[in-house]
C-alpha cells in the first residue's frame, strides 16, 4: 500500500513534533498539575509525596496574612508596591528616552548600547554593584551627596528606603528593553501622519498626544503586561540586596517569590510554599486579564 503525499506529511509532522510533545507534557503540564496537588498536601520533596491536607496550607497562609507584620502580608504588599512603583516609572522613562533617541541620528547606536547593557547583565552582579553604590560612608552615591552638601542616606539599610532603592535598580536594569521596543514602535509610525498634522498646524505637544501615544497603545499594553509580570516575580535582586537574603530590613523588601524560596527550600515547608506559588499564579493571571481588558482599545487611522 502506498501512502498519499498528505498521509506521509502527517507522519513526518508527528515525528517532528514528538520530542516537543513529550517535553510539554512531562516538563510543563504534568508539573503544573503537580503544583496544584502539592499545595493541597503536606509535601515532602525527598519522598515525592505527602499526606492530603485539603485547604490547610491555604488556611495557614490566610491566618498568617491576618497577623500584623507577618512575612506573607509583607511579601504580598511589597510585591504590589514594587509593581506600582516600578512599572509606571519604567514605562514613562523608557518612552521619554525612546522619543529622544528617535530625534537623533548620530551616536544613536552608542546610546542604545549604553541603555541596554544592564539588561544583559546577571541580576546578581547588578545587585552587588548597587549594594556597593548604596553603601553608607564609602559608597559612590553617598560620597556624591557629601560633595554637594546633602546628608548621607541609608538606602537599603533602612526599612523606609530599601524598597524604593531596590525598585530603582530594577528599573535601571529593565529600562533598556522597554526603550528598544518603544523605539521600534515609534519608527513604525508612518511619517506622513506627522506631516499631515503639521500642515494642519498641530504643535509638537499635539503630535505626541494625538498621534504617537494612541498609535503606541498596543506596545504600551504589551510592555505594561510584561513589566508587571516581571515585577510580580522579583527575586534575584531582592535576595542579593537584602541582609542575608532575607528580604529585610524588617521584611521591608521581601517578595512572594522570596518567601516561596525561604519557606520551601530553607524551612522545607513545601506544601505551604506550593500554595504560595498557586496564589502567585492566580495573581498574575488576574492582573494580566484586567490590564488587557482595561487598556486594549483598538486605534485605527
Amino acid at each position, binding site marked *: 500500500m502506498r501512502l498519499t503525499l498528505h498521509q506521509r506529511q*502527517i507522519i513526518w509532522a508527528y515525528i517532528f513534533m514528538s520530542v516537543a510533545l513529550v517535553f510539554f507534557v512531562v516538563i510543563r503540564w504534568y508539573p503544573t498539575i503537580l503544583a496544584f496537588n502539592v499545595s493541597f498536601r503536606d509535601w515532602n520533596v525527598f519522598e515525592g509525596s505527602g499526606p492530603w491536607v485539603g485547604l490547610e496550607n491555604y488556611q495557614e497562609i490566610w491566618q498568617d496574612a491576618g497577623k500584623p507584620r507577618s512575612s506573607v502580608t509583607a511579601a504580598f504588599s511589597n510585591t504590589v508596591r514594587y509593581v506600582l512603583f516600578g512599572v509606571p516609572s519604567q514605562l514613562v522613562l523608557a518612552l521619554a528616552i525612546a522619543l529622544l533617541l528617535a530625534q537623533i541620528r548620530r551616536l544613536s547606536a552608542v546610546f542604545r548600547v549604553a541603555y541596554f547593557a544592564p539588561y544583559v547583565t546577571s541580576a*546578581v552582579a547588578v545587585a552587588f554593584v*548597587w549594594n*556597593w553604590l548604596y553603601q553608607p560612608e564609602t559608597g559612590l552615591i553617598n560620597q556624591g551627596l557629601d560633595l554637594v552638601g546633602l546628608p548621607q542616606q541609608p538606602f537599603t539599610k533602612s526599612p523606609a528606603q530599601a524598597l524604593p532603592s531596590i525598585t530603582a535598580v530594577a528599573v*535601571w536594569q529593565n529600562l533598556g*528593553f522597554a526603550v528598544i521596543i518603544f523605539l521600534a514602535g515609534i519608527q513604525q509610525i508612518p511619517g506622513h501622519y506627522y506631516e499631515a498634522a503639521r500642515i494642519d498646524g498641530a504643535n509638537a505637544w499635539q503630535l505626541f498626544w494625538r498621534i504617537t501615544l494612541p498609535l503606541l497603545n498596543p506596545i504600551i499594553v504589551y510592555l505594561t503586561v510584561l513589566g508587571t509580570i516581571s515585577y510580580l516575580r522579583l*527575586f534575584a535582586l531582592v535576595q542579593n540586596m537584602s541582609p542575608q537574603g532575607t528580604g529585610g530590613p524588617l521584611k521591608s523588601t521581601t517578595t512572594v517569590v522570596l518567601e516561596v524560596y525561604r519557606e520551601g527550600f530553607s524551612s522545607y515547608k513545601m506544601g505551604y510554599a*506550593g500554595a504560595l506559588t498557586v496564589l502567585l499564579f492566580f495573581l498574575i493571571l488576574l492582573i494580566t486579564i484586567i490590564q488587557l481588558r482595561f487598556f486594549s482599545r483598538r486605534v485605527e487611522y
Partner: protein
Amino acid sequence: MATSAEIGTEGTLQIAEHFKPAQGGSRRRFGWTLLIAYLLLAIGGVCMVTPFFWMILTSVKPAPELVNFSFFPENPTLQNYLNVLNTSTFERWYLNSIIVAAISTTSVVFFDTLVGYTLNKFDFPGKNIIFIGMLGTLMIPTEMLIIPWFTMSVNWNWHIGYTQYWGIAFPGVITAAGIFLMRQFFDGVPNELLDAARMDGMNEFGIWWRIAAPLVKPAIAALAIFNFIGNWNAYLWPLILANSREFYTLPVGLSFFRGESTTHWEKIMTAASLASIPLLIVFLVFQRQIIRGIALTGLKG
C-alpha cells in the same frame, strides 16, 4: 538644503518648497531640540554606564583605597583578580555556565526551529490543540513549577553528580516563546520552494534542514543569542538544583561568594566583573543583532 534632500518623493518636496519660510524657523528650533535631546540622553547614558565603570574601577583598587575615597585608582592593580581566582572556584563556575547554556541553546535552536516549522508548514489532525497546548504554558510562571521540578529531579537523581548539568538545563531545553517566534518567521518561506524540493525527491527532514532553516538564519541567530544570555543569567532554578559548590553556575556562585567576603568590596566587585564582563563583551560584539532581534521579536509577540 539638508532637509529637502532627505525628503524623497517629489510631492513632498513640493510641500517642503511651499513651506520654505516656516522651514527656516523650524530648523533653528530643531537645532535647539537636538542639542537638548543629546544632553538629556548623555545624562541618562552616564547614569546607565557609571555603575559598570565603578565596578571595574573598584576591582583594580588595592583595599586601602576604598576607604580613602578617590574616583580613579591611584595604584591600579590586578592583584584582586589573582586573589579571587586563586581562592574560589570561579573557573569551574564559568565552565558550568558555559555547559548549561550550551546544552539548552543547542537544544532550543534545533527543536524550536523544527517545531515552529512544522506548525507553520504542515497540516495534521490536532494541530490547533497542540499549538494552544504549547502556547498555554507561557501563562504558567516557572516559580509555580520549581517544587514539582525539584521533586522530579530528586526522583530521577538529576540533582547529584554530573547529571546536575542536565538537571539545571532541562526546564529550558524547548521553549514555547521560541516555537511561537519561529512559527511566525517561517511565514516568509515560500511553499513553492518546499514543493519543488519535494518533487526532486528530497525527504522532509532534508527540506527543513537544507532549505527552510537556512532561510530564517537571522531569526535563529537571535533565538540562540537570547537563549544563551537568558540561561547564562538564570538564577532561581540553578540555585535550587545545584547542591554542591562545584556545580554552581556563575550567578549562584557569585551569590555565595558574597556571603564569604562580606565587607571586602574590592573582592566582590572583582567577582562581579569576572561574572559580567564576558557577557558584556558578547553583547558589544553582537549588539546590532541583539537590539534588532529584541525589536523584531517584541513587535511580533
